[in-house]
């Protein structure tokens, strides 16, 4: 089996899994308990917090552990709005993950002035439109770092500077689920990430909240995470995340290079097939680990199932949107429509993928297309 759907989730690394097991079966204590083994465990969690924070050039006190990307994205918005009472303007992009897009949409009916900014044909934010939308009463901004469907990379630090000039009171959040550690750290007020995109288990992630940002936090209870996110600390998850992240930090350059090589090789192979189009940024401009291509004349879903049967797992878009009907919101915003949208497939890689897999995958795709395109509407 060739797994090219690493943006949906990744295989948990052996080291991360063994770490989790150890903290489930041996060091299983509640780190908030009073006895010494628990106190030691709390220290380990905080050491992990410090290491993860360092990877984002942040202070450990600025990192809140959560259940993952969706919770982080939701609470970034709700916790910021709860800390300021006015019905301010809130700004996001048209191509965000549903865990940002849906909460923003819901805020419309709460009376907030919600603005969705369009994107360029390659999937990056339209900066002019963004700049024009910024106002003094803008309270919250959320712009994704790396787009999960096409791999477009936004220059978050630069957008942050623009935002601070024109909307100094706004809190600037970025969804970094597809970028954390894989991309160089950026400057912003809040940043979400998730463990399972980095070979850690599902159910653990985090939210960076820059010191001084007014943030009311999320769920109430025992006051864990500095009172901003109550709930018993997910020690096995956090420690496994720590292990997986440490490996990624250490090898980032090599991993990026390897994934870029796979991406380029697959792209070159596929470019030889007729009627294939690249969606999103040019291959070297996008993330090393996401490639989105359209195969004209076939439906993405049909091609996906055909490839699955041959042992290649890919996706037609975000797994979080696969159960939703209708057109692809992200490709629509990029102006990728019609036959090209119908035939879009996302390939996403991890450092374990190889060039040989890229060759085999391209061959399988060509075989499938040869069958499916026989039935093309003549």
């Amino acid at each position, binding site marked *: 089996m060739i797994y090219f759907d690493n943006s949906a989730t990744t295989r948990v690394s052996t080291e991360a899994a063994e770490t989790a097991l150890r903290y489930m079966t041996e060091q299983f204590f509640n780190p908030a308990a009073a006895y010494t083994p628990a106190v030691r465990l709390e220290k380990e969690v905080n050491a992990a917090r410090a290491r993860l924070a360092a990877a984002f050039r942040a202070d450990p006190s600025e990192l809140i552990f959560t259940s993952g990307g969706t919770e982080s994205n939701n609470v970034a918005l709700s916790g910021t709005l709860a800390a300021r009472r006015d019905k301010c303007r809130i700004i996001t992009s048209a191509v965000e993950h549903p865990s940002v897009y849906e909460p923003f949409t819901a805020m419309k009916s709460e009376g907030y002035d919600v603005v969705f900014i369009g994107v360029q044909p390659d999937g990056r934010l339209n900066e002019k439109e963004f700049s024009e939308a910024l106002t003094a009463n803008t309270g919250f901004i959320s712009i994704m770092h790396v787009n999960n469907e096409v791999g477009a990379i936004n220059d978050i630090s630069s957008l942050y500077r623009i935002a601070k000039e024109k909307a100094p009171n706004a809190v600037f959040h970025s969804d970094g689920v597809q970028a954390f550690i894989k991309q160089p750290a950026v400057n912003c007020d809040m940043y979400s990430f998730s463990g399972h995109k980095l070979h850690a288990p599902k159910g653990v992630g985090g939210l960076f909240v820059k010191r001084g940002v007014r943030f009311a936090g999320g769920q109430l209870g025992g006051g864990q995470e500095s009172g901003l996110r109550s709930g018993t600390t997910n020690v096995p998850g956090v420690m496994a995340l720590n292990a997986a992240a440490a490996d990624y930090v250490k090898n980032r350059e090599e991993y990026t290079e390897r994934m870029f090589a796979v991406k380029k090789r697959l792209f070159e192979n596929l470019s030889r097939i007729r009627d294939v189009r690249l969606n999103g940024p040019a291959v070297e401009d996008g993330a090393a680990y996401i490639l989105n291509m359209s195969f004209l004349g076939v*439906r993405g*879903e*049909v091609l996906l*199932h055909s490839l699955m049967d041959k042992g290649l797992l890919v996706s037609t878009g975000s797994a979080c949107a696969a*159960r939703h009907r209708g057109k692809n919101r992200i490709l629509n915003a990029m102006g990728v429509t019609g036959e090209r949208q119908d035939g879009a497939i996302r390939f996403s890689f991890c450092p374990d993928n190889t060039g040989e897999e890229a060759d085999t995958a391209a061959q399988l795709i060509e075989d499938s297309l040869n069958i*499916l395109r026989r*039935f093309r*509407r*003549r």
Partner: protein
Amino acid sequence: MERVILVRYTEIHLKGLNRPFFEAKLIENIKGALRGIHCKVHREQGRIYVTEISEDRFDEAMERLKKVFGIHSISPALGVDKDWNCVVETAFSLMEKQVAAKPDLSFKVFARRSDKNYFMNSDEINRELGHLVLEKFPTVHVDIHKPEVALSVEIREKAYIYAEEIPCANGMPVGSAGRAMLLVSGGIDSPVAGYMMAKRGLNLSAVHFYSYPYTSERARDKVVELTRLLSAYAGPIRLHLVPFTDIQMTIYDNCPDKETTVIMRRLMMEIAEKIAVNDGARALITGEALGQVASQTLESLCVTDDAVSMPVFRPLIGFDKDEIMDYSRRIGTYDTSILPYEDCCTVFVPKHPVTRPEVADIRASEEAVDFTELVEKAMEETETLIVKASDPKLI
């Protein structure tokens, strides 16, 4: 005090000598629908009574009965001692709820007495209880022609008192009319078509064609789930899942492009008919509506009918899409029907299907290819499931 459910049926009353057969079938179906809930079901004087219902599942029993075809309406009733004071108190308690909802309601007392030894006759009960209710609730008034609330009292071995009549699914008891084979695609129409024919008393078998690997496992689960939702009305359904990819490939390789859809439908009908015979079904049911798409023009329907000798029931033939969607929402299949998975009919679609096919042309195109072995193979590889309402929800 005991809570019981009184079940009324209507159309069955029109039956003559066959009436006991229909009544027995209805009771059997009611027992089937209430399986797993402790209760007793018996018939008495043109009514069916469900008694000794486990108290914590009373509402569930009511919900399940609403989906049993052949039932006109049900009433949740209170069974109490025949002592007059007890009857009056119970009637008051029922009226209290109704008056709280609408203080100036109109009502009438409707008494029936099968215990002829009771100390009052029906008319006396009507007058006396009506009088007491008017005294107790001064805001209400009597309307004996069109009352908003019919406060009913039945004096039998116990007194049964009720004030509500809940309309149900009507129709004929499932199984009283034989068996037919429903072609299910996974869309909005076919479950509604199945519902309508089950409502006329048919037992259902169902057949679905899928194009593995080009259609998803979820598309298959969706069809199983739609069948499960339908079985809440129709009782257990035998669902046949037929692998159809090879046949589709062969059609598309060998037949004129614009005829592929109609030939595909003919082969589906042919296979459905063969399975129907094995299942003891005597007709086919489809969700087609005249003119909805190219394959549902009059000419196309004639060509599809030509592939089989069984009657083909199309209960939605005169319905608009909007009407079918309304029905689908009402019976609870809509939300599942619109889940967005490709099905075997959308995987390979010609851009310009023929809208006015001629039987002779289509037969000629079809005869150019030998489908016999492929059809046999598809039937051999068909998977059959018995789908019941009590199965776990799949998607």
